[in-house]
């Protein structure tokens, strides 16, 4: 399971992040599309950026799986909570 | 001194008390099983000189059994309970013909608004009385709960009904009183230092009596 990793090109990641941010701004304030579409796309971009940071800057991509699990545990819990609390308003 | 559930004052009392009894039996069995078992072991296996404990790491069959039985019981209990839950508090559980009464809670009193003679809330002939809830027996009632300040809770033990009254939310709860008589409406959610005395009287009257009372009260209110 010990695989050799090459160090990623951090500058490239940085360029990605900058571009995605620019895209978000344009999307949010220039693009004439429906609110919900914007919401969906923006969230998608945000998650994408977050993933870039987590995987490459925080090296999750190169960590052993049990450390990744550790990092992921809270997320389902948070989602369960939000889903439940929001269901208040959709009934 | 009473030691069982209060008088069955509404149509909910039947199923709820039944469920309570069912759970009492289930848990009673579990309770006896465990406690008797413990006491038995405590005496049967207490230390004796020169005796060594029986060396075992467990028994899968036994464990499967005492995992499966509770699992099945609990799921069954869940299904039964849910059936009644949906009837009592489910989204559209309120019967269409239910008689509306407005209940406004504030520190530390209940303001009961009656629909007047036209039987509709929000019309001119509505009138409000403090701390006195009159309801006709044998007819579904829907209370429109609203709160002025803190969270209160609408609770009539004999009706087995309880519903929190939350500021900023309009919550409807329904029930159908069955036994004429006077009861107490208690606030059962801590709402401040007067919480303990936030109580109203509940008069369950036969439909005729209720009509009569309503007329009188309506007149007094208009004067």
């Amino acid at each position, binding site marked *: 399971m010990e695989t050799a990793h090459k160090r990623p090109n951090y500058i490239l990641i940085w360029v990605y992040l900058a571009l995605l941010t620019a895209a978000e701004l344009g999307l949010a304030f220039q693009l004439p599309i429906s609110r919900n579409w914007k919401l969906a796309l923006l969230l998608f971009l945000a998650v994408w950026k977050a993933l870039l940071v987590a995987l490459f800057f925080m090296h999750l991509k190169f960590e052993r799986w049990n450390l990744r699990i550790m990092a992921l545990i809270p997320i389902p819990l948070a989602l369960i909570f939000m889903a439940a609390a929001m269901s208040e308003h959709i009934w | 001194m009473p030691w069982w559930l209060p008088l069955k004052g509404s149509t909910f009392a039947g199923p709820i008390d039944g469920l309570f009894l069912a759970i009492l039996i289930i848990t009673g069995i579990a309770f006896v099983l465990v406690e008797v078992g*413990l006491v038995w072991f405590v005496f049967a296996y207490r230390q004796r000189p020169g005796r060594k404990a029986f*060396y075992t790491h467990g028994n899968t069959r036994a464990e499967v059994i005492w995992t499966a039985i509770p699992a099945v019981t*609990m799921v069954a209990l869940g299904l039964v309970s849910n059936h009644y839950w949906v009837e*009592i508090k*489910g989204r559209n559980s309120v019967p269409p013909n239910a008689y509306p009464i407005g209940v406004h809670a504030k520190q530390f009193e209940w303001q009961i608004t009656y629909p007047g003679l036209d039987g509709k809330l929000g019309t001119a002939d509505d009138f409000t009385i403090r701390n006195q809830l009159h309801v006709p027996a044998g007819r579904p009632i829907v209370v429109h709960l609203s709160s002025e300040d803190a969270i209160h809770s609408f609770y009539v033990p004999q009706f087995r009904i309880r519903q929190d009254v939350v500021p900023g939310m309009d919550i409807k709860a329904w029930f159908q009183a069955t036994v004429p008589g006077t009861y107490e409406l208690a606030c059962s959610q*801590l709402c401040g230092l007067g919480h303990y005395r936030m109580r109203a009287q509940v008069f369950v009257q036969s439909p005729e009596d209720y009509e009569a009372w309503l007329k009188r009260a309506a007149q007094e209110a208009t004067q």
Partner: protein
Amino acid sequence: MTTVAATSQAAHGQHDDRSFLRKYIFSTDHKIIGIQFLFVSLFFLLVGGILAMQMRWQLGFPGKPMPGGGILPDTMAPGGVILPEYYIQLVTMHGTFMIFFAIMPLLVGVYANFLIPLKIGAHDMAFPRINMASFWLAFAAGLVMLASLFVPDGASRAGWTQYVPLSARHDLSGASYGQELWSISIILLGLSSILGSLNYITTVINNRAPGMTWFRLPLSIWSLFITAILGLLALPVLSGAAIMLLFDQVLGTHFFDPGAGGQPLLWQHLFWFFGHPEVYILILPAMGMVSDLIANGSRKPIFGYHSMVFAIVAIGFLGWIVWGHHMFVSGMNPTLGSSFMVSTLIIAVPSAVKTFNWMGTMWRGNLQFHVPMLNAVAFVAMFVIGGLSGIYMAATPVDMFIHDTYFIVAHLHYVLFGGSLFALFGAIPYWYPKMFGRMMSERWGKVHFWLTFVFYNLVFFPMHILGMGGAMRRIYDPTQYDFLKPYQPLNVFISICAFLLFATQFIFFVNFWWSLRRGKVADQNPWHDNGLEWTLPNPAPHGNWTRVPTVYRGPYEYSSPEVAEDYLPQTRKLPTDREPASAPVAGH
């Protein structure tokens, strides 16, 4: 024998030349920190008890001047007669102190700190300084909460659940600083628990002795580990909620203010999303330590070790998806209620596994009823009652009737006192020699146990009947209600038993202090326990081990046919044992 070797080394091996301050006050030694937690939280337990006694006086003898109540200021109890506003403070502070500052630190602060390194064979926690910070934060939090009793208008008045808007708006609660101090104290406590938890988790994952595989961990460590995870993930939610509450109180934000679109239910969701994991934080360590005690007292391996572990994990996980069972009648979406009911009921299953496996452990054992064992067995007996009463409330229609009645109060005391506290009354004397080198008095321990057991049941069992009668919680004067008047004799009875219960606790109090100086000096392994900690002298030296021990088997090898005596320490190497695969040794 390796045992002796290891200890003699440890004994001479480490002479530590730390100043008194470093050694006992600002110590980074996990054992000292554990002991600090012990003293502080026992003090808060006492405080909680004293508050409870005042409540019981008012409930038993409403409006009558309380003996000795004269010393209280007129804002609380003029002439010793407790005022409504003071009663609410009593309830709130009783719950808060008992949950956050007594039981939680007693179980986690004391025993996670004290036991984890000792039982897994580590020199200390992974981050000793963070560990110290965690204690002092908890201490500060406790002081703030205590101080709130003495500010003008007294302490918080919104119950330990702090439901908004009551807790957020002073014009409703009538409190002034009390509410803010509650929030601040809880924020500090949350930070403290997070620091503690991350320490425990890292230590258990990373610093186990060679051969101490996951499935050789004592159940106490397993449960403390899962508890730490619960604490790590639940307390930040509470802190976040408390911060929003604090902002609502002082900055005029509107999170929970319905007038400006805020949501009172949001607070309840946040609080209980923390709150239910919290109650498992309050029981899992107790379950774990009781498992150790029962196996030891029965001189028998734990019955079904693996399923016990899985049960702990299952409870830990299910604890996250049941919080709504506190909100069935709160106006929450009823469909949500249904799903929360089912998940709640399911928790009975892993709990069943634990209960019956404890019994399986005692079955055909060779039971030795030393004080820890007595309390452990009582734990099983009492926790079952509390757990079973939980089933009534889990059933939504029944909960609609018994919610916020004394049925709940009975339930929570059966699980918290009958559960957690009995476990502690077992754990404290069990590891007392490891902490202080002396034994607590066996005789007085037994007297304390029996009296507590009897009075405890006399106090809390009748509360079920009150609850079935519909008696509401947090009621200053039950006689206000006609339908509650007939129950007053029962309240009087409960109160009298409660006073006796409290008095009984002084046996423990005295026993505890007396044994510190005068207790019988403990021999090295007084309980003939298999755990690693008993290979060290009592009390264990700073740094625990000179040479990290090697583990050859699980912790519950009692009455093993392989050896003559009825216990087989984890570190004892039999000819048949192989050395564990060596791992890189800790680098710090």
